């Protein structure tokens, strides 16, 4: 199955540029890791429920009430670019 692993395509999905050197290296290393994890195919999981979470899961609700939290200034304090109380992002509409 790992024969189909394509680091270049997966990096695109992850929104992560890689150098040619990284592409070559990760293709080999991650294929080796996938060959290792593929051993799980040998485990019989017929009728076994998946565990997403270590504890019994309940819905957790709270009142939708206002409370003191970040001001706009707080929220923007670490922004690499901001102006007029807004985050500045690259142009997304051509």
């Amino acid at each position, binding site marked *: *199955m790992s024969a189909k*692993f394509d*680091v270049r395509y*997966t*990096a695109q*999905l*992850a*929104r*992560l*540029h*890689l*150098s040619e050197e*990284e592409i070559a290296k*990760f293709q080999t*290393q*991650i294929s*080796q*890791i*996938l060959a*290792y*994890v593929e*051993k*799980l*195919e040998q*485990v019989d*999981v017929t009728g*076994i*429920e*998946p*565990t*997403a*979470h*270590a*504890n019994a899961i309940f819905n*957790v609700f*709270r009142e939708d009430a206002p409370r003191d939290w*970040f001001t706009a200034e*707080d*929220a923007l*304090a*670490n*922004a*690499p*670019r901001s102006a007029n109380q807004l*985050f500045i*992002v*690259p*142009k*997304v509409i051509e």
Partner: protein
Amino acid sequence: MELPALSLADVQARLRAKEVSPAEVLRALDARIAQIDPLIHGYLSRDLDAALACAEKADVSLPLGGVPIAIKDVINVIGEPCTAASKILQGYRANYDATVIRKLRAAGAIPFGRCNLDEFAMGSSTENSAFGHTRNPWDTSRIPGGSSGGSAAVVAADEAFAALGSDTGGSIRQPAALCGIVGLKPTYGRVSRFGLIAFASSLDQIGPFTKTVRDSALMLNAIAGRDPQDSTSLDEPVPDHTALLGRDLRGVRLGMPREYFIEGLDPQVDAAVRAAVRHYESLSAEIVEVSLPNTGHAVGVYYIIATAEASANLARFDGVRYGHRAADAANLLDHYGRTREEGFGPEVKRRIILGTYVLSSGYYDAFYLRAQKVRTLIRRDFSAAFEKVDAIVCPTSPEVAFKAGDRSDDPLKMYLADIFTIATNLAGIPGLSIPCGFADVDGRKLPIGLQLLGKPFQESQLLQIAHAYEQSTDWHKARPTLG
């Protein structure tokens, strides 16, 4: 004894008795760090003035009153950096306290110092930090373990009385073992993760590094409990975790899992752990052999689930709200791609790609869903074992601290360093590591850790069992020679 060499409980007793002031303790610790940390590099930064301002107001009558606590640089403390040892968060400054920090402050403690780690807590050696390696105080040519290697090293080197770390697959217990101190990973849901930079949300848990078991109980008392801001924290009553310390072990049953005593286990680790088990017999505990048959699958399951969750969690680093942003992006995709290329280190990139792949269309069922089902089998193994025993006793790490650089280019070999700690996180149960001896390697003494695993929310009993061993042996009194 010099102030920095004291345990948390001992320094707090002196503070409480007003034999020493919080500011004097901080200055003594700061001087020790200035002297020792150039050899260790356990700290990424510290702010003495901010800590001294807290010291002025410290209430020494509180359980941790006036005691400075070191913090892994992945937990937000207001006004301080929180880099996750990544270039992508260089320059970030937290503008809120994590819940554990709020709770430490409420118990009188003073957050002081930011501890080094593997970038985004991904690693087992602290070599993946973007800001330089941490060294093991017992042999500075060796790694301290990871990912919380800085937290472990500074406690072992008497540069901190206690530290907070986080444990996703062994990141508290393995470095505690390799540095010869006590490291506790609480039950999943015991401690709020609000304000912890998330790695793998179904596995992450915050816990303490300490010099003694009693100190571990005191730290857990301070940080445990439900938090409305972390919906995975559970509404279980928080007992006084020191209450059972000192009780004898009559009637306590300890399980030895045969799958943890395998080929590849360092013979000196094997001998030390078996000696510890015999010691427990002499303390009236009953030893029972148990089986955790799916242990061999844990590393594979972990590297699917943890990387899948990490690939989603790390999507937030997009160069918009905080952190690094690539200059002069041609368009939005170029902005994301280069921001993340420039900001993340190699291991983080590797895991993002692996996690993205196992979640991608066509592979989800084969990898992620199958891993979640095997996770169920691993949980069942522990449930079955805990019907027969109160706790499980085994090695923390299959080996002692290895040389820096030895396997930094072999990710799979590095992953296998966590073979004995990972299943605990998959099952969500509590685990701790305590010192149980030393290996003799090239004429150096290297610490060995004994791991104790318990039932969910039974940290008190786990600490009782650990304390009985600690108090009847001398391993925890040994300190590395430094400076």
